[in-house]
Structures are given as C-alpha cells and as structure tokens.
C-alpha cells in the first residue's frame, strides 16, 4: 500500500528540526526510524502534509553515563541497546526490552525515542521507562524541559504531553544504585509481535534487604502504558520474599485494564500480568543481589 502525498524535509540539527516544526505546526510529523509511522502512512491512518526526517542528526544517537544518569539520545537505535556492553552490564532491563521489540531487521532503524514518543500502549519501552522512573527531554523554540515519564504519557493511546513544536531529544534513566536491579518479561505469540502482556519491574534494596524503591510498568494491557503504583508501593519496607512478590503481582494484575482481542481474553491477559510480574520481580531480585 502506498502512502498519501506529503512533502519531505531533512533536518540536519535539532534547532533546524524545531524550526521546521514551528513553521509547519500540526501539519508536520517527525520521521525517526519510521517503523511505526511509515506503516501508519501506508494504511493511511495518518496523513501529515510534511515529514521532518531526523535520521541525519548524528548527534542524537548516543549512550552516555555520567553523574548518576544514563542519557539515551532519542535517535539511538534499538540494535544499539541489543549489543552495547554498557547496557548489557549496567542496564540489563533495557536489553531485555530492546530484544523484544519487533525483529532484528526492524531494530536496525527503530529508535528508542520513537518507541516512547509514539505512546503506543503496545510498545515495550514505555513500561520499562515507567518502572525505571525515567524522564525525557523535550526541546522546543525556548530550549529544553525535562518531563518525568509519567507526565509524558496521557490517558489516551498515541498521545503525549509533547507540544507540536517540540522534539523529544533525550531519555534519562537513573543509574543503578548498589543492590538494585530490574527485568522486563514479555509474552508474545511469535517473534515480531506486540505483547500479549509485558511487565517491567525495577527494585532497590537497603543493606538489610528491605525494598527502598519498586517500580512496575505494564505493556499492552490498557488504553495507555500503565504504572502499577499499588503493586510497587506494596513492596516498600519489606524483604522481597515470595509472599511480598505474589501480593505485588496480584496488585499489578488488578491495575491492568486489558481488552479481549486476537491476543486472548481479558482474564487470560490479567493472569499473564500476574505471572510475568512474579518472574520480573524474581529476576530483578536476582540482579539486585549480584546475579546477571
């Protein structure tokens, strides 16, 4: 299928991209990896009149860790997360996530920024970023602002609090403290499919093994990416034993708002959230206590 007509402009820098967005307003769409946008154009679910291609802004592709923060340039490809030693050793939850996005050929172009900016509840990074309590940097005509990830998504699918003249330029993830760890588990029908359900969990423990932070995010079980607050809060101050893990998993299942569709009945998906949450928390604990 062939997209409707549009004009195409290449932005060579962030200010140039922002200026183009200013100029064209609602009519323009950013083209990053294009692996969500081009399918939408082909099905004519989207019909922007201008595409602003940011693929040539080389300095939007980076991974930098400094002063307690990992900075991910918005244009960083999923394939980079798959293979980066920094990610594998320090942020394995991000690799758990990237290797579940689509397939390896798609991941050569698909970007982390696009995965989040698209705000598809079926996309995998939103749940992980919610679990990690990440934030994103929006760059507009008057400079940068930092948006906590929870305030970036809204109650509607495919909607964010980014303004039409803003570019998502960076994702910021807190560096792991001692005794912290996380994991992402996704159930899919086959390689390249969106999740039946997915659960991201991130925890931090104090010296006595009591939970000081717990974030749990859910994929594709509601109208928007979901942070399971009650589930995370239920763990605070406790040792992460089986009782606590199962209680949190029940609360995560309760926070899910799945629909019945081709990927299964709602109750099945809720059950899978419970199971995946148990697995993600156990793996997070293993990693927080020195495992891989």
């Amino acid at each position, binding site marked *: *299928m062939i997209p409707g007509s549009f004009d*195409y402009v290449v932005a060579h820098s962030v200010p140039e991209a922002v200026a183009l967005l200013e100029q064209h307003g609602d009519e323009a769409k950013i083209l990053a990896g294009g692996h969500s946008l081009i399918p939408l154009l082909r099905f004519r679910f989207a019909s922007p009149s201008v595409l602003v*291609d940011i693929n040539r802004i080389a300095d939007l592709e980076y991974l930098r860790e400094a002063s307690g923060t990992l900075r991910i340039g918005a244009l960083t490809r999923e394939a980079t997360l798959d293979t980066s030693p920094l990610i594998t050793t320090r942020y394995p939850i991000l690799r758990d996530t990237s290797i579940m996005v689509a397939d390896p050929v798609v991941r*050569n172009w698909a970007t982390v920024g696009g995965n989040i900016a698209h705000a598809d509840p079926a996309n995998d990074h939103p749940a992980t970023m919610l679990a990690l309590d990440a934030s994103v940097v929006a760059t507009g005509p008057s400079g940068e602002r930092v948006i906590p990830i929870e305030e970036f998504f809204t109650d509607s699918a495919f909607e964010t609090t980014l303004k039409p003249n803003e570019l998502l330029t960076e994702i910021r993830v807190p560096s792991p403290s001692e005794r912290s760890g996380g994991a992402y588990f996704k159930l899919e029908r086959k*390689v390249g499919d969106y999740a039946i359900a997915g659960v991201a969990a991130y925890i931090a423990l104090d010296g006595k093994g009591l939970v000081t932070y717990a974030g749990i995010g859910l994929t594709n079980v509601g109208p928007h990416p979901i942070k399971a607050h009650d589930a995370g809060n239920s763990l605070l101050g406790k040792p992460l034993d089986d009782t606590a893990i199962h209680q949190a998993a029940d609360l995560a299942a309760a926070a899910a708002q799945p629909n019945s569709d081709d990927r299964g009945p709602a109750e099945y998906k809720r059950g899978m959230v419970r199971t995946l949450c148990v697995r993600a928390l156990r793996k997070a604990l293993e990693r927080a206590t020195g495992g891989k």
Partner: protein
Amino acid sequence: MSKQHIRVTINGTVYEDDIEPRTLLVHWIRDGLHLTGTHIGCDTTSCGACTVIVDGKATKSCTMLAVQADGREVMTVEGLEQGGKLHPIQEGFHEMHALQCGYCTPGMMLTSIAFLGRNPHPSEQEIRVAISGNLCRCTGYVNIVKAVQYAAEKMASSEQVPVGAGQGGE
C-alpha cells in the same frame, strides 16, 4: 507536493531520479529501476522479503522512503554475484538446498550478509535470532541456517570481506 531529486548508489552504480517523497524504497527499486530481485511479501513490515542493505544495515525496504536513501549506499540481491562468481551466501543456499520457492531468499541472504559482517563466527542460535525477521513459508529454516553456516565458514577461510560489512547494527 513536488518531486524530489535523489542520488543513490545501488550495487556500485549511481542512480538518479526525481520521485514523489511518498515512494517506498522497494517500489522505486522494483518499478523505477526494474531490479525485481527484491520482493514484496506483506503490507505490515513482517516478512522481510524486501530486505536490502542500506549503509551496512539490513533494512526492510518497504518501510523506508526512497528519499531517505538519498546519498546512501544500497545493496540488493543483484549485487551479490561478482564476475560470474556466486557470493558465498548464494553458494551456501545452493549447496545446502536452502530454498524451495525462493520468494524469501533474496531477503534472507541480505539479512545474513549484514549479520555475518558484524558476527563472522556465529552460533546456530545467533543465526536463528538474526534471521527471525525474515519469514520462509517453505523450508522450515533448517537448511537456511546451514547455508548461513556454510557462508560463514567460507568467508572466514577465504578472508573475503563480506559485502555490506561496515557500520551495521551499531
């Protein structure tokens, strides 16, 4: 919506054209340049039949605009054979009976070449992951994996630099 001028190197030859920005790379390659070895198997970016190598990266050409390829280097299946000699991956597919109808084969070979450029000594599991975005409806994949292993060995022993090696996947 005006046409745009593009200049793309495909299999070492420079092609220039004026095209509508909405033209998909696969349509330009097939209908504009008549390089019909690159196939179209789906509408949903799922099958990988359209895979080509763009600047070293395996790319589903149904999900890239031709204008995005401006100034870039593309390799299609037509670029594999050199001077009447099959590329090791082609030889592998031939020797290992890795195709039946052949529809998926060009995409499979280009995905494999870009992969071997990054990982010249892969395990069987790594090969299976690497080709997981390319669907074959005939073979059951077993012989495709053997063909990639054949090519890996052949390329390692001849120290031939695989075409399409480079910055792919980073």
